[in-house]
């Protein structure tokens, strides 16, 4: 499916070509679910393109789809053509970035593939984190940006507190919950990860879709208690912490989100995603405010 993207916006002049990633992680339609899990883990991507032998794009398999296959009890040697979602959505390198964003926002998709000639063959992929990087670079180049104004801009960035940017509220499960229950929660709330608490309510771990698909690859029964696969410790930040420090913490831990607590680590009050943080840093002027990305899901 081709979406012609030709609207004008505040990022006029910035095209998909400047933001897209040229390395498209792809597998053949006959590749297995196990191979897809290995590729998502190794290449650290959230989705893979499924192709025919002639490189025509047939569909997309995301971590959510792989988690769904686990939940449904599909064997690890299931071919990707049985679990993929298709056809992939395409834009073109010359399309404007803001219009591509609008398409992603309106269709609630996290990525668009990029095609040239011949159509239907992916030459790149455009996902939110790629756009965040370009917006940040764009902001540095922009004459109006506060960040460009030397010390004043940087001071301002340092003064931004985590609570101003975080998403309030948090989804949590007890450590005795089964992987089934956690998968249901992640799917229903369109989340990438959940907090795990002890029976006394103390945060003890985090479980992401990556942890769940690895449990699938390791052939763990889905009724296994989540405590057996959770990541510890909970990487968290105090809500009054500077956004700058929180960003550094996320980059260091190679994670996409931080749980945010108020005064004591037991009191988790929200989640800060790297997209939230980088988006905030991508400009505070009117032009950029109008172009901030709304990532799908709560």
């Amino acid at each position, binding site marked *: 499916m081709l979406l012609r993207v030709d609207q004008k916006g505040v990022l006029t002049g910035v095209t998909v070509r400047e933001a897209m990633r040229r390395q498209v992680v792809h597998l053949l339609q006959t590749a297995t679910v196990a191979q897809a899990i290995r590729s998502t883990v*190794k290449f*650290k991507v959230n989705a893979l393109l499924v192709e025919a032998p002639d490189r025509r794009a047939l569909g997309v398999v995301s971590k959510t789809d792989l988690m769904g296959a686990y939940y449904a009890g599909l064997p690890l040697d299931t071919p990707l053509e049985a679990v993929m979602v298709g056809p992939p959505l395409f834009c073109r390198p010359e399309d404007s970035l803001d219009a591509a964003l609008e398409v992603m926002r309106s269709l609630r998709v996290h990525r668009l593939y990029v095609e040239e000639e011949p159509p239907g063959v992916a030459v790149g992929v455009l996902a939110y984190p790629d756009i965040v990087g370009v917006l940040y670079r764009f902001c540095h180049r922009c004459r109006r940006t506060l960040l460009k104004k030397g010390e004043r801009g940087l001071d301002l960035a340092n003064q931004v507190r985590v609570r101003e940017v975080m998403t309030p509220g948090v989804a949590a499960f007890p450590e005795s919950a089964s992987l089934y229950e956690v998968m249901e929660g992640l799917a229903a709330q369109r989340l990438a990860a959940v907090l795990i608490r002890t029976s006394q309510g103390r945060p003890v771990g985090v479980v992401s879709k990556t942890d769940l698909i690895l449990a699938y690859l390791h052939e763990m029964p889905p009724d296994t208690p989540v405590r057996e696969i959770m990541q510890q410790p909970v990487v968290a930040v105090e809500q009054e912490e500077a956004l700058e420090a929180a960003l550094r913490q996320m*980059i*260091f831990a190679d994670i996409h989100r931080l749980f945010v607590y108020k005064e004591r680590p037991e009191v988790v009050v929200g989640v800060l995603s790297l997209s939230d943080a980088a988006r905030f840093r991508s400009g505070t002027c009117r032009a950029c405010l109008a172009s901030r990305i709304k990532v799908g899901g709560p």
Partner: protein
Amino acid sequence: MADSARQVMDTRFFTLRPGHTLGQAARAFVEAGEATGRRVFGMMVVDHQGKLVGMLSLYDILLAIRPKHIHLWGEMQDLDLEGLLDRTCRQAAALRVGDVMTTDLITVEPDTHLLRVIDLMLKKHVRRLPVVEQGRILGIVYLSRVFEYLLDRLTVSLPECDWECVDPA
């Protein structure tokens, strides 16, 4: 058969299990290098029955080390990244070999002709090929070993050359 994989394969080889961590795999690379006197940058992965199930190469490990958000922190040059490499390596070291190994296996048989072996290595961009016969691993062919073998052939009946050896010392 003359000039086949059998002539160049190493019959002493080391293997990993899918359940090993990448940290253990790195240790195995070092120890295998010490034992064989040549640097090891990749190994075969076998299951509990000794059946070949994957290959782990330095590229698989480098991909596991590369941070997910490197494209972002490339933009954020004002961030202090000191200590990042150590932390990233610690995280990658905890992954299992079976989580990142390559399972699209390319193998040869002991009688596969050496020119076919060279063709496969060039076309598939691989530096090592397991030699398998009826499901049993017999050895491994290294690109460097193939080249050593070729060097002998390339220099056969070569007249004296007057090449130069530059030694600034």
